[in-house]
């Protein structure tokens, strides 16, 4: 997932869970059945999980442009020169 996709996944997850929670509570209260509320909510959590957790393609619509490997070879990493100043040692 890219950065935009992660943000989208988190938003979808939060909104879906809240919507399912409210729907489940209203359904349970109106029908007078606690079990109905729990079932609707559990179904909602599972559905939200299926949509937001796996790495679906629509989460990757703004991919990051990593540098091409052939391009990287043309610009070698600079070498770090170490100047050692140890006492009593000669190089």
């Amino acid at each position, binding site marked *: 997932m890219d950065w935009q996709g992660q943000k989208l996944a988190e938003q979808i997850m939060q909104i879906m869970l809240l919507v399912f*929670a409210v729907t*489940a509570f209203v359904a349970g209260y109106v029908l007078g059945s*606690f079990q109905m509320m729990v079932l609707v909510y559990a179904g909602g959590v599972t559905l939200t999980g299926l949509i*937001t957790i796996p790495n679906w393609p629509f989460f990757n619509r703004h991919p990051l442009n990593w540098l091409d490997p052939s391009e990287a070879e043309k610009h070698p990493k600079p070498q770090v020169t170490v100047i050692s100043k140890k006492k009593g040692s000669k190089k």
Partner: protein
Amino acid sequence: MHSFGYRLNGLLTFAVTILALMCVIASLSDNLNIPSPSAEIQIMNINWFQKQPKGSDEVSLRMNISADLQSLFTWNTKQVFIFVAAEYETRKNSLNQVSLWDAIIPAKERAKFWIRSSNKYRFVDHGKNLRGKEFNLTLHWHVMPKTGKMFADKIVMSGYSLPEEYI
């Protein structure tokens, strides 16, 4: 949210937190219910009324208990626990309570009932104070929720008395 595990963890913790909130609201919704229960207890018969060898009075009685407790049930009720207690006053104690009978009502349909039974638990005094004693029979109930706060209340029925002499 950059990996499967992170997203899974985030989803589960948020889902459980919201579930806890739903349970709190469900418990609060119980306060909207205004119950209107009714009950009546008749003492059909005093089976026997003796003084135990160690010295305490004991009585066995047969009761006809009828009640309509259907209005106590809400969508968030798991069961209702009811018990009948005899309450009386003695010289030593201002209040004596002896539990005579109890039951668990698991569903609204079973909450309107009548039952004829002798006392499940022994009606024994601390002493020899029961002769001619006037007492109340109180039906207590505890509404046990599926989640949240338990409500308890009672109906006091007065006017019962025991015989003057042992039977």
